[in-house]
């Protein structure tokens, strides 16, 4: 079997050149000035945007918590359905995710506008108009809508494996349904929760499309800040690289913390 190692050489080269080197380039750019000097100015400049980091973390956390709260009962209900129904139902839940996420976000733009459908419908029963779009609430909504399936899927795949008899045994032994959930279902689904949290949190904290389309440009997130430095209104790739570096560190930190929660040290995704 050992001779098969050679098969991985093309990939190893690819990995080196296109995964590792680019990440090193990010670090390299973060510590260079435009004139080619070494500096830590870029990294310290990131501090100016601490409030954007705080806001991004806050909105992403909010979206993650909402996703968890929405997805948990749903995944549980799904996993307790009859077996032949489950695959169809799962398909129905996951189907919207297959549509391009720009289009999904665009759909919310048309719904939330000041003259959009929601405000029009509310207007017919004499309410509103409410300010829906261009708020941080709209951004969180966009995140929840786009990333909810990322929470449902890992939760479902863990819960599906929970044996019915374990739950029955727990209730036979005198657990009420609340205790069944807290003592049996939640501990057994912990790996699903942790991987769901990372799968929602990471894209949510780094998005720039959702905040641009639903946040009206005044709810900048880390993603917007990075995009602005590379292809947007304030060209400064060195600062952009520094922000990306800080973002990577934050996410690494979060992953480590989340790893502590999963029972065995398995790879999360």
């Amino acid at each position, binding site marked *: 079997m050992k001779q098969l190692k050679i*098969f991985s050489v093309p990939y190893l080269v690819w990995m080196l050149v296109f995964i590792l080197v680019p990440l090193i380039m990010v670090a390299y750019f973060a510590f260079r000035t435009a004139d080619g000097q070494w500096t830590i100015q870029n990294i310290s400049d990131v501090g100016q945007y601490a409030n954007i980091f705080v806001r991004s973390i806050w909105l992403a956390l909010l979206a993650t918590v909402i996703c968890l709260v929405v997805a948990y*009962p749903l995944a549980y209900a799904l996993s307790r359905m009859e077996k032949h129904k489950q*695959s169809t139902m799962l398909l129905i839940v996951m189907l919207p995710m297959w549509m391009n996420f720009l289009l999904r976000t665009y759909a919310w733009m048309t719904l939330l506008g000041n003259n959009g459908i929601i405000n029009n419908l509310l207007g017919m029963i004499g309410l509103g108009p409410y300010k829906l779009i261009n708020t941080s609430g709209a951004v969180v909504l966009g995140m929840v809508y786009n990333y909810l399936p990322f929470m449902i899927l890992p939760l479902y795949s863990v819960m599906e494996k929970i044996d019915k008899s374990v739950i029955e045994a727990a209730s036979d032994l005198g657990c009420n349904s609340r205790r069944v959930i807290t003592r049996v279902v939640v501990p057994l689904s912990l790996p699903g929760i942790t991987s769901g949290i*990372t799968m929602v949190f990471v894209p949510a904290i780094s998005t720039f499309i959702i905040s641009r389309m639903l946040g009206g440009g005044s709810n900048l997130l880390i993603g917007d800040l990075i995009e602005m430095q590379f292809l947007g209104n304030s060209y400064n790739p060195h600062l952009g690289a520094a922000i990306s570096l800080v973002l990577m560190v934050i996410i690494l930190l979060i992953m480590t913390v989340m790893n502590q929660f999963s029972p065995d040290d398995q790879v999360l*995704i």
Partner: protein
Amino acid sequence: MKRLGKIWFAVVLVFLYAPIFVLIVFSFNETKSRSVFSGFTLDWYEKLFHNKIIISSLINTIIIAVIASIISTILGTLAAIGINSMRKVPKAVVLNITNMPIINPEIVTGVSMMLLFVFFAARMNLEFGFVTLLIAHITFNVPYVILNIMPKFKQMDPHLYEAAQDLGCSPFQAFRKVILPEIMPGVISGFLMAFTYSLDDFVISYFTSGSTSQTLPITIYSMTRRKVSPEINALSTIIFLVVVIVLIVKNVIENRTAKRNAAYKGGARE
């Protein structure tokens, strides 16, 4: 309890489908209004099919997705076989690096690839466009292929390969006749995953595309930043329909094979 679960299920489904439903309905709207439906028309579909920019970016997207997923499947399959035969520590290192594009935010992957290409562009005659897009797509696809194949090795008896060689197979024959059939389901699901990710990717393409070879998501993005035309809705409707049809066909085929397998196994037992 069970009823509550069902109600919740219905509520979430409404939340998930309402926006898409609205998009679809307004693709048939006579006027450009996005909130008032004033009459039925198919004009936007006609316009869509005459929109050269959309059509050419659709073709680009498909070409890139096909090539990228084929290359990444080959690369990933070979890599998985190699990685599987590595010792524990190098294996862990390689797998961890492989996971990076999956764990890292898309924007960081996109930016890092962009910086690499900029670096190359200054020194070699590289230009942002088809090639950079293809490289970027392959890079973020390979990890998914590997991830889909690796578990298949766990289910496989590691001695099978050696047994085949002992029985007179050349290494290549042993690979083709023994290993490949075992990991084939993983290869196929990896390919499909790579293909769909590639079709759908926006963020990484956004940072690695140039003046030519725009992909459909990039075109959609620039459409949403201009005067919006219901052509977008028409496009959404078509994409949604294609997705629904593909998924239904896939489900039917899977169910059928599952049934056939079940029948076959049942027969064998008898």
